[in-house]
Each structure stands twice: as structure tokens, then as C-alpha cells.
């Protein structure tokens, strides 16, 4: 019996806008309009400024921890633009702020979260995003559940879930992929492969040549895109979204990008990675190529740049004002949102702010709590 090939697959890599700002016109067809690109570039400026100000706030003790998004804006914006605001749902990790903002999340929510305030997770109604996911990988399964509900209810909606390269090592990733494909739910898996999971490089995270190929084992489609290329990210996500909505199956998008900053403000990446590597990726910064492209098309100039930067600065300062202008939460807030209805013991703890019981029960014998023994 001849040995036959039971299965074969290959993974494509899509790039439309290269790091020099040169666009592949053919591949770009039907993707982003000029207005959309200008809009996205302006948002990159705003959100980069916001990211930088968050960093300085942390350094001056006004924010506790912050994971910079710097360098990954094209991945977040391109995919965010591909999803329909108010219809589709975003289930993020913590490095795609820009996508959340595009879909209506007030940026001060993210600031409040990192300032140690749960009110930052009180997502306004109508904004279709879940809060930042701190435990790595857990959110992907929630995304599949959301999408499953849409399918069961025959709603024309789609979910996108974001995660890092490191997250693909968690069991939750594999379980989410398997459920998503087994039940063929309208969900897009978007991996921001920024080459590092804290100090662990991508090559040490998995022996797979690509993250995208992990899709194949689950009967999904995998595609790798240049994650710093707004066009490629947009195109791949739009196709994945339409395919999922039509019941055509799951796509795992691997966006190749780079974490230009430290893992978080608590990290010092110089301990484990070369500055030469960081510099080589800094040259591939999505902002540089997007600007070059816009300039080459006569859609952008120095004057516009200066105005956009002013706008970004004012925008970021406004968010700082909004997030710092809110009074410290009342202590009772830690009790009030735990259950729909507060149980008696918890109410007692809330009202007395203590967990010891003496003096709380009138029928308890032997009370003389006002005095001190021996005095």
C-alpha cells in the first residue's frame, strides 16, 4: 500500500504595507479608505500619547502598574476597525486598548483599572467589550461562549478575542479553539505575537514554527499577518469576521508585532533582551510606516502632524484629569457588588468594618465591651 498524505497544510503570511510605507495596491484593494487610514493614524497618535502618559504617571506614583501597548497599535486598530461597533463583541487581554477605545470604551476606564479601581471595569452599557483579562488565556473561552449564544439565537454578530503569544501555551487556548471549531461559532481568534511573554521569547514558548499553524489541528484556518501593517490586519480580520458570520469556520490570526516597551512598569526588559533587537523593531513601528504612506499619498504633512500631536496631548491630559478627578471609592463598595443581594454576615461586616463578633449580638452573654479589663 502506498503511503498517502492524510493531511497537508500551509500558512500564508500577509503584508500589504511594508515597513517603508510602500503599499501593495493589488492586495490593498477594497480594504481601508483614505479617510479610514487618516483616522487610524490620528488615533495611533492619541493612544500612543496616552500610553506614554500612563507610563509617566506610574513612574511618579500616580498609577500602580501599567502594561504599555506601544508598538502594537496597528494590530489593535486594524482589527478593531474590522469589527462592527455596537454589533460585534471584543474580548480582550490588556494590550489592545486602541481596539477597545474604537468600540466606545472610555479611555479613563483603562486608567482607572490600572490605578487600582474596579470602577474602571464598569463597562458602559452598549459598549461591547469585556474588561481587561489579567489571568492569561482565560478570556478566550468566554469569547467562544458569547459567540455560541449568538449562533444559538441566530443573531448576526461576531466575537473577536485577543491574546498574546504566551497565552497559546495555556490549556484554555486549546480548549477555546476546540470548542469554537467543534460548534462552529462566529468567533475570531486574534493573537498578538509580540515576540515575548515577559522574559520568555516566542521560540521558547512553543516549538511550532508559527502560532497560526496551531489552528490547523483544530480544523480552523490560520493566517499570519504583519501586525504592524494596518492594511493586512484589517483585511485578515474582515475576512475572518465574514467567514465566521457566514458559518464558514474559525480563523486564528497571528499578528506579528513587537512589544516595544517593558512587559509592564514592574518589569525591566533590559535584563533579558538585546537593545539591538528592540531597535530593529522600533524601525518597524506601525506609526512610522503609516505616516510615510499617508505622506506619499499627499494625505499628510508636517502641519497635520503638529496639529495631531497637539490633539493627542490634550486628549491624554483630559483622560488623566478624568481618571484622577474621581474620589476614592467608598469602603462599602467592596461589599456591595459581590451578590445581587447582600447576605446577612456580609452586611454585618460592611456595616461594622470588622470580622470579629464581640459586641455584635445583644443576646451574647457576658458582654462588657465598653470597658477594658483590668482598667
Amino acid at each position, binding site marked *: 500500500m502506498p503511503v498517502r498524505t492524510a493531511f497537508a497544510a500551509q500558512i500564508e503570511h500577509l503584508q500589504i504595507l511594508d515597513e517603508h510605507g510602500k503599499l501593495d495596491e493589488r492586495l490593498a484593494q477594497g480594504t481601508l479608505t483614505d479617510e479610514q487610514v487618516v483616522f487610524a493614524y490620528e488615533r495611533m497618535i492619541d493612544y500612543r500619547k496616552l500610553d506614554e502618559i500612563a507610563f509617566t504617571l506610574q513612574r511618579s506614583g500616580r498609577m500602580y502598574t501599567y502594561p504599555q501597548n506601544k508598538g502594537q497599535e496597528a494590530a489593535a486598530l486594524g482589527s478593531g476597525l474590522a469589527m462592527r461597533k455596537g454589533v460585534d463583541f471584543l474580548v480582550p487581554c490588556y494590550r489592545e486598548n486602541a481596539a477597545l477605545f474604537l468600540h466606545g470604551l472610555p479611555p479613563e476606564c483603562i486608567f482607572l483599572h490600572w490605578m487600582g479601581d*474596579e470602577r474602571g471595569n464598569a463597562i458602559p452599557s452598549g459598549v461591547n467589550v469585556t474588561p481587561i483579562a489579567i*489571568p492569561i488565556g482565560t478570556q478566550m473561552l468566554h469569547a467562544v461562549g458569547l459567540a455560541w449564544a449568538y449562533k444559538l439565537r441566530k443573531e448576526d454578530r461576531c466575537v473577536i478575542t485577543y491574546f498574546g503569544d504566551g497565552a497559546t501555551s495555556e490549556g484554555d487556548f486549546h480548549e477555546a479553539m476546540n470548542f469554537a471549531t467543534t460548534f462552529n461559532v462566529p468567533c475570531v481568534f486574534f493573537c498578538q505575537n509580540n515576540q515575548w511573554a*515577559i*522574559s520568555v521569547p516566542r521560540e521558547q514558548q512553543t516549538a511550532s514554527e508559527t502560532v497560526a499553524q496551531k489552528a490547523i489541528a483544530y480544523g480552523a484556518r490560520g493566517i499570519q499577518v504583519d501586525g504592524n501593517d494596518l492594511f493586512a490586519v484589517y483585511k485578515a480580520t474582515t475576512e475572518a469576521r465574514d467567514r465566521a458570520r457566514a458559518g464558514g469556520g474559525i480563523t486564528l490570526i497571528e499578528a506579528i508585532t513587537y512589544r516595544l516597551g517593558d512587559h509592564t512598569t514592574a518589569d525591566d526588559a533590559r535584563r533579558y533582551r538585546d537593545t539591538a533587537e528592540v531597535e530593529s523593531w522600533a524601525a518597524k513601528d506601525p506609526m512610522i510606516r503609516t505616516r510615510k504612506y499617508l505622506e506619499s499619498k499627499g494625505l499628510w504633512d508636517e502641519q497635520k502632524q503638529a496639529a495631531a500631536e497637539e490633539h493627542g496631548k490634550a486628549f491624554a491630559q483630559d483622560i488623566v484629569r478624568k481618571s484622577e478627578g474621581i474620589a476614592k471609592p467608598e469602603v462599602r463598595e467592596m461589599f456591595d457588588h459581590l451578590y445581587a443581594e447582600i447576605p446577612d454576615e456580609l452586611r454585618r461586616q460592611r456595616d461594622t468594618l470588622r*470580622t*470579629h463578633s464581640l459586641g455584635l449580638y445583644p443576646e451574647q452573654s457576658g458582654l462588657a465591651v465598653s470597658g477594658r479589663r483590668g482598667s
Partner: protein
Amino acid sequence: MPRTPQMIEKGLTLVDAINEALSQEMERDARVICLGEDVGLNGGVFRVTEGLQRRFGPDRCIDTPLSESGIMGTSIGLAMAGMRPIPEIQFEGFLGPAHDQLVNHAARFRNRTRGAITIPLTVRVPWGGGIHAPEFHSDSPEAIYTHSPGMKVVCPSTPSDAKGLLLAAIRDPDPVIFFEPKRVYRSFRERVPEEDYTIPIGKAKLLTEGTDLTVVTWGASVFQCLETLDSLPDDQSVELIDLRTINPFDADAVAASVEKTGRCVVVQEAPKTCSMASELSATIQERCFLHLLAPVQRVCGFDTIMPYAKLELEYLPDPKRIAEAIGHTLAY
């Protein structure tokens, strides 16, 4: 690893002491390996494993993929094969994915194989609140693991205890979960013997002697209690016990103290209901019923989710709450 001039002059932090214990044990016993997320080149996010990879190589201080179930499950196999793995879970909030392997496998192998297969591993886990860390980085889950038979649970509060208890944990024939109170990782230095020594698992430490009331605590709360004791009126004579091991806990030491004082307050960071404080209260009333002059009181974290940083100090027991409970108990 040789001590730095600062360590020689000023003593060791908790981080230094744990690092020294790991290093000495890896030197002494070739079966010992450390594994976990970022423990290698980066030395762990708290630098507890700093320098170990450089010294012992990437086969003995190992950066793993980002998978707690993977870390824990493979550590079980490594232990089964005669290694002495020391997995690190980066924060206690990420024990979740490791829980099944830890509770349903590591802790059960000895019993379910009638002793044929044993799992001598030591899971190191930064534990507790007080450092303004993000969500899922500040919990105190010691009761969960104490409630899961087959595992020992240790929580030292000082550098010298940490070194001796960690060496005992690594050499213990059963799985040990070693909680490291991150709030005091670097908050003070202490003289720590440089040589090899162990502190028996299951033995509490009497920190201050007293006659009127016993306070039992562990982890970073020890220092909240010490601060409280400093500010108590002179006529309140309080005995302070650092439990050090949560499971098996030193019921004899606690009972002996409470039989003497007749009153007890248990202080812990974890939520009150169904906690270690509950277990201690139950044990004390069982063993010391006729000696008790007041009901045992619990000063704990509230029965809520550990709040984010803005409210965490309102959540954690502090000297004010501890002193109030001591006052009430003495006045009973």
C-alpha cells in the same frame, strides 16, 4: 551563591534567604531543579531565583511555557521519576490552572497508590496582599490547600524561618506548598545562618510571651500584630504566635498558650468564612473549652473579593482592627 557585602553587614531579606536556600540545596542535591515562568534569565518577577540559571545552567533553573497546569503536572512526573522539582507559580492568583494537578494529583498519589508512588515537590508561590499589585495578585488561598488533604502548607514570615522551612520542604517526602508573603519580601533584613539548617514543618514560633490573651497569625500579618502589640496599654499582656506552618498546624502550641491565657484572637489576611482562622477557632474550643474566658475572635480579610489597590489596605487587617478585637476580647 556568596553573600554580598550588604548581606554580610545588614543581613538577608526574605527574597535573599529563599534564594540562598534554593542555591544551597541545588548545590547539595543534584535532583533539585527550579522551573516556572520567567524564573531563569529574569530570575523570577520578584528575583527570588536570581542567578540560579547562571550558576546551575538552563537544565536546572528552567523557563517553562506559560502554563500553570503544565508546570504543575510535569513537576509531578519529574518528582515521580526521582527528581526534586521546585515549581514556581508566579502569583497565588494563577494557581487556578494548576489547581487540578496540585489538588487532585500531587496531593493524592501517595494515598491512591498505597504509598507506591510519592510526589516530593515544593511549589513556591508569592502570596498575599499589601503591595498595590494588580487584580489576581494579592490573594491568600492557604485554606483552600489546607482543605485539600495530602499537601503540606507552609507560610514563613521571616528570612531565617523561610530558609529553614524551605530546606525542610524540599527534603519533605510529600508535596509542600510554600507561600511567600510578598508584602515582606524586601521590607526588612535579618541575620540568617549561612550554613544548612532546617526548621521542622508543623512547628509554630512563640514571638512574644504574655499572660492575658493569645494572638495567632502567620505571613505578613505577623508584622501588623507586632505593631499592634507595641501600642497596647501596659496592662494588656499578649502572647503572639507565628504559626509558620498552616498544614499540619501546631495545635499543641496554640492550645498550650490558650490554656494559659484563656483568650485568643486569630489574625489572617484571608476572608473569614471557612478559613484557617475558622479551623483554629474550632480546635481551640474543642481542646481548651474549660480554659476559655471569652469566645475566640477572628480578625480577617472580609468575605469579599480582595479589592484592587485603592482599597486593599482597608481590606487587610491592620493594627486598629486587631487592637479593637484584642480590647473587646479582654473586656469580655
